[in-house]
């Protein structure tokens, strides 16, 4: 069956994420837009995933816990996980390689951890914009070994993309999908990669209005996190 998706959305925890990207607003806007499944993928952290998953339970929207991880090479990789516990354990691994640089919210935006009532629990004090000191190859394997799935984010963006920073996509990477930003405007790139990879058309939304409309679908047997991860892992 076909389900409408958006697997790359930021909350107010990402410093570049708008303050209106609260757990309730993201769930409600996704439902308004007619989406069936989304993933929350803040920069280098999953700390807003517990509250949004709690909210989503009653809503009918499937929410997958995730992160957008910035590797040593400044490349962005989206990681999706089967559950909160796995996501938290991978974040604990990232913490061992995290640069503990204090965040400056006045310069870069606030990093807000919220509960399911959209109340601020904490301002995360370490900058989420620094790279995790793990190479991209190793990171992809780490995510895969945890039971999750990784795919390169916005391969066509000028900044933080695998094509921009590495120049190519290594053939031996254990990935089955990649994300093309504004794929409709980049049909040549879609055609180049569609034979080898599943092309994901996620929003990378940092603002509510940018969350995808119900236009992009994945075809899976049932609407569960496990089926989504299975689909994204398999070539």
């Amino acid at each position, binding site marked *: 069956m076909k389900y409408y998706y958006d697997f790359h959305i930021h909350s107010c925890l990402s410093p570049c994420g708008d303050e209106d990207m609260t757990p309730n607003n993201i769930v409600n806007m996704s439902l308004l837009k007619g989406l069936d499944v989304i993933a929350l993928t803040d920069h280098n952290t999953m700390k807003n995933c517990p509250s949004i998953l709690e909210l989503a339970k009653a809503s009918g929207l499937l929410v997958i816990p995730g992160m957008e991880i*910035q590797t040593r*090479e*400044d490349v962005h990789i989206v990681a999706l996980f089967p559950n909160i516990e796995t996501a938290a354990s991978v974040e604990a691994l990232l913490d061992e390689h995290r640069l503990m*640089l204090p965040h400056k919210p006045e*310069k870069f935006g606030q990093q807000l951890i919220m509960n399911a009532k959209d109340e601020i629990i904490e301002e995360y004090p370490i900058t989420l*914009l620094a*790279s995790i000191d793990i190479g991209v190859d190793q990171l992809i394997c780490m995510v895969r070994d945890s039971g999750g799935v990784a795919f390169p984010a916005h391969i066509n963006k*000028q*900044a933080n993309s695998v094509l921009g920073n590495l120049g190519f996509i290594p053939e031996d990477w254990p990935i089955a999908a990649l994300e093309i930003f504004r794929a409709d405007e980049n049909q040549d790139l879609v055609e180049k990669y569609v034979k080898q990879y599943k092309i994901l058309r996620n929003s990378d939304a940092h603002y509510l209005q940018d969350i995808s409309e119900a236009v992009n679908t994945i075809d899976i047997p049932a609407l569960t996190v496990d089926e989504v991860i299975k689909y994204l892992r398999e070539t």
Partner: protein
Amino acid sequence: MILKELLEEEQFELLSGTTTDKEILNTRCCDLLSWVMARGSEGTAWITVQAHSNIVAVASLLEFACIIIPENISVEKDVLDKAHDEDVAIVSTPLDSYGVFKYFYEKGLK
């Protein structure tokens, strides 16, 4: 060296920003923004081939003297507009990074 003096040279052209009395204390060439963010310091003339808008945030945060874009790499208008708003000096040069280092060294920035 004051930024204004750099801009008097034919091979350095100011593309954005208005304050040119910033002092250049050192120079660094690095294209990994997160590396620069973690280690950069005030008064740096930062040489990079990255010409996207994120360089403005880094230079502004760390109070760099300027960003030097080498080899006549073009910088888009949206980046220049953002740099202008933040009063970040983006300087263009036909020199490569080695050429820029040589220039500064010969001028006494050691």
